[in-house]
């Protein structure tokens, strides 16, 4: 990235009180709509849910009506609650985090229906399942009849029954209206009502909220068991589900990582890179302060469940009611998908380990190779920038067999990692000549090796270790005495510490590799002559091939993504005016388009507000671009990184011809202190100034933040970035001025 930036378009996290989650475990499905062999990141299917494209007001009205039908007239706190819930759910849908009408969703819906059908009289309405693109093993509900199941959970559970228990637990949250109860309790805590008179500090309030939440969780555990026991699923799965929860933070498998995974016939790593034994997973849940958690300790939950289960036969029932085959397939999809989610989260070591595990059954899978390639590429770039610690935790913090991967990557020096990733990428380039990403990564990694580490062909052996050693020994046979230098050379050939030098033995026989190597060396030598650029070259952004072919190209068209708009009623920014925010967001959307065109640009929109029910292509385009954006914006500390969605984004660019995308947003809130300067003038010049000063004291002041940035999707470069704060309101003229300025900069950059 050209510039460091912090997004104001900070996404709305699922606020604690809105979400009742059960950090759990595992997955399912069938319908061979998507084969694992040709796996591509999961996509939702038509039709779009109303929450994607309807206005917030329309959706809110519908949610209010649904709530009213259940409970009669709404109190003010209930109205506020519904607004928050409605907004939070819509936001999730509109960001494209949710999967719907796809294979995975259909399968989990079937399990959900198994539970619902057996508890029809106990549950208000049939819950509708949605899958969330998140690697965290969890499920959650809001107030309405929707259950959200994270991909992470599906990768972890061992059978349908465990997932069914998790769903039953969530049904209790729904049935008991825990979200509403929790909201109301939080209001009481906030207002110091009833037993909360002693709650004074934020810390005490957090504890009070968590304790209340834990009560709800226990209720959901116990009541959920009753729902679950009404089904024909295996009774013991409820108990086992807590085991899943307990170890959910670890990868979905615990197979050992084969040391030879990255080795070739000639590249053999030093033993120092590997642990003799990895740390065993500590079975004890370490909880510093249980009161600071929304969920009770797992062991306590298990004990509560044990009491409820009593002497029941835990083996009674079926682990699969829908289909075991479907489960295996669905879990396969989820596990493939989580590899990409790990990449998006910059958990590269985890992505490599999971892809490695999946390769045991799918050895030639292109997607899995692509995951490893992307992870290695980005790790190399971080390592070359001396910032590896940003994306790779210390291996000592890791438990379980995946620790081997962390140790291996931690111990590789930057040049060794660069060499390894270059070799891996070049093999992919050779095997998949049509894959543009493989071509680019291979070339860029080789370039990094030359430009960053100042290496040439002479730094690599063209022949295998054994051949060289034999030749040397033969040469030595005729010598009576070995010189100091002979001994050093032989030692070097023998030691595995210089494994890096043998990385390209096969590749140096490849004419394509040699040609590229020579060209890059020539380019480097030419640039090196200019000593002024030598240091700069080491910092160069390799993904962009250093010199952008489009550097002088004027930007003619911009695609405007859905802007963010946050209007807060309170000075502390805690109370958001949802409807006003949405109205102004719509206005901003129009203004961006109008002013972009005024500045002479061709402006397009990629905004769910303009979608219709069957606009799946537009929706997928939006999701792809948003996923790319969410991933790339995390890379603001190192330049030239590769998004796991770059390939998909390149397809979007090719299809639409649009490569420049604009993100923007506004936040507006009341300000604490008004204009002291004018007030002072008022006192200093009482005749004319006093009324003005008084007016300024009484009139609430505002502060507004406008943030925007334009990204070039093709080059993963930030073209324009602006973060402007001013102590004024977000009135029309200010926003017109700022938005025009954005496009003016784009045109004149």
């Amino acid at each position, binding site marked *: 990235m050209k510039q460091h930036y912090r997004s104001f378009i900070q996404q709305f996290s699922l606020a604690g009180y809105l979400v009742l989650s059960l950090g759990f475990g595992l997955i399912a499905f069938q319908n061979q709509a998507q084969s694992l062999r040709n796996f591509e990141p999961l996509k939702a299917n038509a039709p779009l849910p109303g929450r994607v494209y309807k206005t917030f007001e329309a959706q809110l009205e519908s949610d209010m009506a649904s709530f009213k039908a259940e409970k009669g007239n709404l109190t003010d706190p209930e109205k506020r609650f519904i607004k928050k819930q409605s907004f939070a759910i819509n936001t999730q849908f509109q960001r494209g985090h949710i999967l719907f009408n796809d294979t995975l969703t259909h399968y989990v819906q079937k399990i959900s229906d198994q539970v619902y059908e057996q508890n029809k009289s106990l549950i208000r309405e049939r819950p509708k399942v949605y899958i969330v693109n998140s690697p965290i093993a969890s499920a959650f509900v809001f107030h309405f009849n929707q259950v959200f199941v994270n991909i992470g959970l599906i990768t972890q559970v061992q059978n349908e029954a465990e997932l069914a228990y998790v769903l039953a637990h969530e049904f209790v949250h729904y049935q008991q209206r825990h979200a509403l109860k929790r909201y109301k309790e939080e209001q009481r805590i906030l207002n110091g009502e009833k037993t909360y008179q002693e709650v004074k500090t934020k810390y005490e309030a957090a504890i009070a909220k968590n304790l209340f939440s834990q009560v709800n969780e226990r209720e959901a555990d116990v009541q959920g068991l009753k729902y679950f026991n009404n089904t024909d699923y295996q009774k013991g799965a409820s108990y086992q589900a807590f085991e899943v929860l307990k170890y959910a933070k670890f990868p979905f498998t615990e197979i050992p990582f084969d040391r030879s995974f990255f080795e070739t016939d000639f590249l053999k790593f030093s033993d120092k890179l590997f642990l003799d034994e990895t740390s065993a997973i500590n079975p004890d849940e370490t909880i510093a302060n249980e009161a600071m958690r929304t969920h009770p300790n797992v062991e306590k939950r298990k004990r509560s469940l044990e009491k409820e289960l009593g002497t029941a036969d835990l083996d009674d029932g079926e682990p699969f009611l829908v289909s075991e085959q479907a489960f295996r397939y669905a879990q396969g999809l989820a596990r493939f998908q989580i590899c990409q989610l790990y990449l998006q989260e910059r958990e590269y070591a985890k992505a490599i380990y999971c892809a490695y595990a999946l390769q045991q059954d799918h050895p030639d899978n292109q997607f899995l190779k692509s995951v490893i390639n992307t992870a290695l590429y980005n790790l190399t770039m971080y390592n070359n920038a001396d910032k590896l610690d940003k994306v790779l935790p210390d291996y000592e913090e890791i438990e379980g067999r995946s620790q081997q991967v962390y140790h291996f990557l931690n111990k590789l020096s930057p040049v060794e990692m660069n060499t390894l990733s270059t070799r891996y990428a070049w093999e992919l380039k050779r095997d998949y000549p049509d894959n543009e990403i493989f071509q680019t990564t291979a070339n860029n990694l080789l370039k990094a090796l030359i430009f960053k580490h100042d290496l040439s062909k002479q730094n690599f052996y063209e022949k295998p270790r054994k051949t060289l050693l034999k030749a040397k020994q033969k040469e030595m046979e005729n010598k009576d005495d070995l010189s100091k230098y002979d001994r050093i050379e032989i030692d070097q050939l023998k030691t595995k510490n210089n494994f890096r030098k043998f990385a390209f033995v096969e590749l140096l026989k490849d004419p394509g590799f040699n040609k590229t190597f020579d060209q890059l060396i020539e380019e480097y030598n030419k640039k090196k002559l200019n000593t002024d650029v030598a240091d700069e070259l080491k910092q160069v952004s390799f993904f962009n091939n250093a010199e952008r072919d489009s550097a002088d190209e004027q930007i003619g068209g911009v695609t405007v993504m859905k802007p963010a708009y946050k209007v807060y009623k309170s000075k502390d920014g805690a109370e958001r005016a949802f409807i006003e925010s949405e109205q102004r967001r719509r206005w901003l959307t129009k203004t961006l388009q109008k002013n972009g065109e005024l500045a002479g640009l061709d402006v397009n929109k990629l905004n769910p507000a303009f979608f219709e029910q069957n606009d799946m292509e537009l929706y997928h385009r939006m999701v792809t671009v948003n996923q790319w954006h969410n991933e790339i914006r995390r890379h603001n500390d190192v330049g030239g990184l590769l998004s796991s969605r770059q390939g998909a984004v390149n397809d979007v660019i090719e299809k639409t011809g649009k490569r420049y995308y604009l993100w923007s947003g506004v936040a507006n809130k009341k300000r604490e202190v008004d204009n002291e300067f004018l007030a002072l003038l008022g006192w200093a010049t009482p005749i*004319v*100034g006093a009324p*003005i000063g008084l007016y300024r004291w009484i009139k609430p002041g505002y502060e507004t933040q406008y943030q925007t940035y334009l990204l070039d999707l093709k080059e993963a470069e930030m073209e324009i970035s602006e973060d402007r704060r*001013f*102590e*004024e309101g977000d009135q029309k003229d*200010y926003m*017109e*001025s700022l938005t025009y300025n954005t496009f*003016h900069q784009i045109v004149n950059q």
Partner: protein
Amino acid sequence: MKTIRAFFITVITGLLTIQAAESQSPSYKGRNFSVTLENFLSSSVYFPNSNGESGLLSLNNRHGLRMGYAFNEDYEVNLTYNLYHTNVALVDNVPDRYTAPNFQDGMGDLTGHNLGLNLRYYYKNTIAPLGPYLEIGPVYYKYNLSYDRAHFRYQDANGNTGYFLPEKESYDYSDWGFRFGAGHQRVLFDYLTLDYSLQMNINFAEGFFSDGYCCGDDPHSEAPEKVLRLSSTTRVQGHQFISLKVAIGYLPF
């Protein structure tokens, strides 16, 4: 005339230089120039206004025309012209011994023109010409005092009669001054501007603080010319020292 010509040459040269250097300013949706009609109000507490009234609630009025050019995100340069008319209580500066009943009605008429060049700084991270601003710049004052000599006929203790003021009934004066303002400009309907500010004008005229306008170095001179000069300058200063400005403008391009 030479002064005015020099003034305009300076302004135009400055504008051209600025425009060449900062032609990339976005201004308000690409419109850098504004033409504004201004009205300044100040309280006529001690001196009579154009209606001859004084007091806390009596107002002085000044009209203006301003041309502005926003040359970058934060700055705008303004060329301003002000026109005003007011009364001057000449009797205030007439020595006490020259008294006559009709002296109290003896007002001078003062008509003035100001030419100003300000630099405006839009200081709150908004884009010029929009938002709160501070402005500062030189002002060239040109004003004319006229009076009816008949009002200043006196009779002294010895019964001698005469006219205290000179026979010439019209005097032109010019001064340099300084302007400071703090205000806020908004844009309405994309093309109109609404501008309000507090403005302070300080006249650098020699003698305003030192009583030394004319008639040699005698600070206690009671020469009629000095009375006229001092009265006029004081009036201009009082008229414009602190004003509240409200203005409506247009952004043509």
